[in-house]
């Protein structure tokens, strides 16, 4: 089939679309009032929440046990681990938020949009990877901070083992989804690079 034939088919398809029904104005009005950039706004809100509120919540929870008598080596190491976790999370969330904020569907060219979306997805994947790798350190940090309050009864140890196993299980499941996401992202990056070449 030659390209001219494709054009002819496309024109036939186009002329058949002339018979589309008139759009229902009432439905359009409902769409306008109900779905203003729903998905994008939800993502921006989530991103802003992780950027602003999450560190506050973590710092608040940490501060509950902040007493002078607790200040020992374990507490300091625990605090550093948690601070490291919060700092990297904040950095990644900030970058993600800035990418979403900079997305302007009416002004950006298709390539610009695709680059921003790819960058956002790349950050999302990095965050997942970071969570999988660093979350155990965060967990250790919490245990170290709370060390003075922990009484290692067998029941507490059991609960900690169950939580750890549960986290590992979720991590393994997440890894499968994560691999799919990476494959799709890599394909899109290849497409994008091909388009820019």
């Amino acid at each position, binding site marked *: *089939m*030659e*390209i001219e034939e*494709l*054009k002819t*088919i*496309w024109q*036939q*398809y*186009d002329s*058949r*679309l*002339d*018979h*589309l*029904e*008139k*759009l229902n*104005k009432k439905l*359009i*009005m409902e*769409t*306008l009032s109900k*779905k*203003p*950039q*729903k*998905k*994008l706004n939800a*993502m921006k809100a989530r991103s802003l929440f992780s950027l602003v509120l999450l560190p506050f919540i973590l710092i608040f929870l940490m501060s509950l046990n902040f007493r002078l008598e607790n200040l020992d080596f374990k507490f300091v190491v625990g605090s550093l681990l948690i601070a490291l976790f919060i700092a990297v999370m904040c950095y990644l969330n900030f970058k993600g938020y800035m990418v979403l904020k900079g*997305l302007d*569907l*009416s002004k*950006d*060219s*298709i*390539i*610009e*949009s*695709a680059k*921003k*979306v790819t960058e956002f997805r790349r950050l999302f994947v990095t965050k997942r990877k970071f969570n999988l790798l660093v979350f155990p350190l965060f967990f250790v940090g919490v245990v170290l901070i709370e060390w003075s309050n922990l009484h290692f009864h067998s029941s507490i140890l059991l609960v900690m083992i169950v939580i750890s196993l549960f986290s590992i299980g979720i991590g393994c499941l997440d890894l499968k*989804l994560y691999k*799919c*996401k990476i494959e*799709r992202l890599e394909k*899109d990056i*290849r*497409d*994008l690079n*091909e*388009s*820019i070449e």
Partner: protein
Amino acid sequence: MDYQKLQTDFIEIIEDNKKLIYKVSHMYCDNADDVKDLFQDIISNLWIAYPNFQQKSKVSTWIYRVSLNTAISWFRDYSKQSNKIEYTNWIPNIADETDRTVDELCDQLYRAIDTLGKIDKAIIMLFLDDTSYEEIAEIIGLTKTNVATKISRIKLKLKEYLSNN
């Protein structure tokens, strides 16, 4: 401009360009529900951008840009995407028996286009819609020369796919 007038003008613009929005939605989705969702998202995004539309470019260029950007940056759960291809269901149910060949050819064309990357899909759609190279370059964000090169490469890819299938 008062709100009522803004709405009326907007609906008129959408009505005049609905074919274009349908085509973009169909190009980037592979089942009827997703097509509907994307169509609605495009209209929402157009409505949000409409008050700032300064008519510096053609209305169709602006609609193409918002529609394609929405389709490409459409954030959704990719794991829910189905691989089932239902191209014929996208075409409005207005065909009689004599249109069957057109349906088949449209299927073939869509299958061929579906093998392309997201940006190549946008370029070929604009090309098939007889958009000028300048306009394609403006919408996509490439130079005119790059657009010409891309189009010849895409034509080759499509030709190869169609001759093998």
